[in-house]
């Protein structure tokens, strides 16, 4: 059965609660600030928000349920999405369906976490049953160790080098320098990237995100309502999510996107060549390469070559992680799964906080989350378009290595 589209619904009001490395506040504080800014910007009363969708690790022992009482809300639609880096895309697609079906009129999608000095270390040992039983006792390296395996396997299988990962990190830092909320304020050179100390080889310091505190949020409502409120909105052309894809793969060299991209682009009515910018989930650069491949921007295994021929800066070819991504902005827990999506909303409504991707009409935001044991289990992606643009539907063509999916530098 063909999937219904998301006509008549928009995402709007991108909000970021500024990131800090450590905070003495609780997660509720960051989520409250995000909600407050959402309704203030939208010109809504708190009671107008009748749907709430929450993602947060450090909200525990509370869930979205506890948050309703904490913030004095009485929503008629409530969701709690514990999917880490895939939370943003999943929240968007669920909220959109709720609005479309009339189960809620205005859904606030919130993701945020605090970061106490101790919290990252304490979270690692209890992240999941499999992590506690079968990963954490092995050196307690956390995700660094898990991604070291994936990165090493990817490098060996597809010939990627540390320079390839470094190019992405350096480009993202350049994008981040214009983004006011980025925690990393200094330029990064490839030499500095390569000279950084090893954390879990081949993972080195600049391959790792910095855990921090902060929140990201947006609203989902009908296009009509957004228009009445004078809010620039973003249309949802297509979305996918997938969990525990390819469980028989000995080690993760691909994510769930590879199962679902035909569905994604068919629903969206566009192809990879129509995408003006890509927001990957980038807790480690290897996963960005996997997304570039699995989302159809190049063939599987051509990621390293793709990296070598693009700039990834906002003013160059193939703008990616246009606010700097988590690698340069920071990873505010579950908000990391919203970062790219919220940035996409800003770019597509022409209101970026940092540098602008010129003529950005269609963007793709991707999510990846939850290293439950040896691999990330949740993947998702959303193709988004500004409300002023019209959907193009060109026939899809694979990236041939030179022209397709390449934006010429101005």
């Amino acid at each position, binding site marked *: 059965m063909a999937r219904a589209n998301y006509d008549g619904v928009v995402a709007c009001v991108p909000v970021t609660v500024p990131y800090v490395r450590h905070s003495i506040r609780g997660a509720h504080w960051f989520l409250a600030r995000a909600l407050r800014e959402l309704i203030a910007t939208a010109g809504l009363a708190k009671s107008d928000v009748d749907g709430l969708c929450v993602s947060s690790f450090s909200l525990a022992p509370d869930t979205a349920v506890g948050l309703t009482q904490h913030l004095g809300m009485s929503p008629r639609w409530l969701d709690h999405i514990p999917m880490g880096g895939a939370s943003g895309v999943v929240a968007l697609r669920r909220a959109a369906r709720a609005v479309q079906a009339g189960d809620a009129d205005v859904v606030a999608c919130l993701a945020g976490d605090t970061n106490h000095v101790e919290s*990252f*270390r304490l979270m*690692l*040992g*209890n992240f999941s*049953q*499999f992590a*506690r*039983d*079968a*990963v*954490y*006792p*092995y*050196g*307690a*390296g*956390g995700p*660094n*160790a898990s991604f*070291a*395996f*994936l990165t*090493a*396997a990817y490098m*060996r299988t597809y010939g990627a080098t540390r320079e390839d990962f470094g190019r992405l990190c350096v480009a993202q830092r350049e994008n981040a320098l214009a983004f006011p909320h980025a925690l990393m304020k200094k330029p990064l050179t490839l030499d500095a990237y390569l000279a950084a*100390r*090893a*954390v*879990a*080889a*081949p*993972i080195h310091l600049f391959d790792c995100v910095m855990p921090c505190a902060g929140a990201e949020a947006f609203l989902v409502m009908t296009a009509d309502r957004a228009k009445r409120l004078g809010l620039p909105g973003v249309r949802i052309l297509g979305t996918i999510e997938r969990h525990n894809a390819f*469980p028989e793969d*000995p*080690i993760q060299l691909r994510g769930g996107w590879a199962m679902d991209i035909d569905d994604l682009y068919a629903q969206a009515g566009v192809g990879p060549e129509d995408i003006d910018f890509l927001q990957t989930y980038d807790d480690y650069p290897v996963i960005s390469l996997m997304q570039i491949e699995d989302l159809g921007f190049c063939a599987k295994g051509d990621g390293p070559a793709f990296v070598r021929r693009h700039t990834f800066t906002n003013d160059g070819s193939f703008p990616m992680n246009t606010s700097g991504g988590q690698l340069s902005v920071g990873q505010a827990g579950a908000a990391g799964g919203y970062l790219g999506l919220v940035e996409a909303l800003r770019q597509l409504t022409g209101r970026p906080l940092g540098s602008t991707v010129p003529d950005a009409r269609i963007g793709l935001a991707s999510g990846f989350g939850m290293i439950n*044991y*040896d691999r990330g289990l949740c993947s998702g992606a959303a193709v988004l378009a500004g409300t002023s643009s019209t959907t193009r539907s060109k026939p899809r063509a694979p990236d041939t290595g030179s022209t397709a999916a390449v934006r010429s530098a101005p």
Partner: protein
Amino acid sequence: MSLPRPPKKNPILRTRAPTTPPGGRSRVALGLTTAAALGRLELQVCRDCGTVQYPPREACHACLSERLRWTVQDGAGELIADTVLTHSNDLYFRERLPWRLGMVRLDAGTSVVAHVHGDVGDAPARIRVGARLDRAGQAVLVAFPEQETKDMADDRQLREMTCDPKYRKVLVTDGKTPTGQAVVRALVDAGADLVWVGHAEPWKQYAGFDAIAGLPAVTPVPLDLTDSRAVSSLAAQIGGKVDIVVNTAEHHRTFGIGDRRGLDAARAEMDINYFGLLRLAQDFGPALKARAADGDSGACAWVNVLSVYALANFPAHGTFSASKAAAYSLAQCLRAEMRASGVRVVNVFPGPVDDEWNQLVPPPKLAPSALAAAIVKALRDGVEDVFPGEVAQDWLARWRDDPKALERELSL
């Protein structure tokens, strides 16, 4: 790589306090520990569809059956990716970096995270996965080279999981019995630095004791486990140097309840087999715990020579069985108290040993040298429960299958 002899301890430097790796496990994951305690690698295998799975689960991930059986695996597989941690979030590992880890694809069809032995080549490499107990006493997987390498036991990471007597100082509590003497010889052969061997009544001559006492690495010390003051006194002298205690002291008489009046024999058995362990543990335990992270060859193990009769009473040796059951129970307490330090309590459950107190027990019986070899092997492998010999293995199998049935069989 061969381990160099550790330097003498520098008395100026602070003794490193013991830490242990993360020990939290779900109950279902403890199946791995149950097998590793016996030196086996077992994974869950679905009885309905045959799928081998890891990490441990409550149901088969292929067919959702709950009929899962822990089954011995050969561990053959390929190291498909590895890393060397140079950063860790855990105190134990921070003090032991760098630390090598890998992802292994087992031929049985599942991927596992494992500690990687230093002699394993770069990925991809054929390896053999085994289960070991780490310093938290919990099972972990270790990827070993496919073929045995020279000085394999000397691997720095592996020695964190084993209690190899090489370069360690050991107290054997009774050197007058054939078992005690065999244990001393085996420890010397295994490269122990120094073996203190206890003798309770130095004025008595026992066959073989002088030969043991004359070995260069061996130092006789007076030790009578029935004398609290004597135990305390010895602990005050050497307690701060002992890395491994092997309690071989034992009083063994062959009586049940009805065939000997009075309590003398039973009390003597309890005084050595149970209270002797208690005295020893109270005096030597704290020092051992404090030195559990003292260099690369610090205190690491406490071995109790119990008896398979501790599991189920052997009526012909009824009071002896009861004293060993009491000692076993106390050893479980000792294990729990030692666990926070990482000192391993190894319980050895031999069947009848081929000595004079088992004269009337028909063969097969366990040679003292075989018992000693099993103890050294257990220390090298880092095993926690040892059932050496055919009789012990037979009893263990029957006891695990149905303890009540074993009780009835023994009463016939």
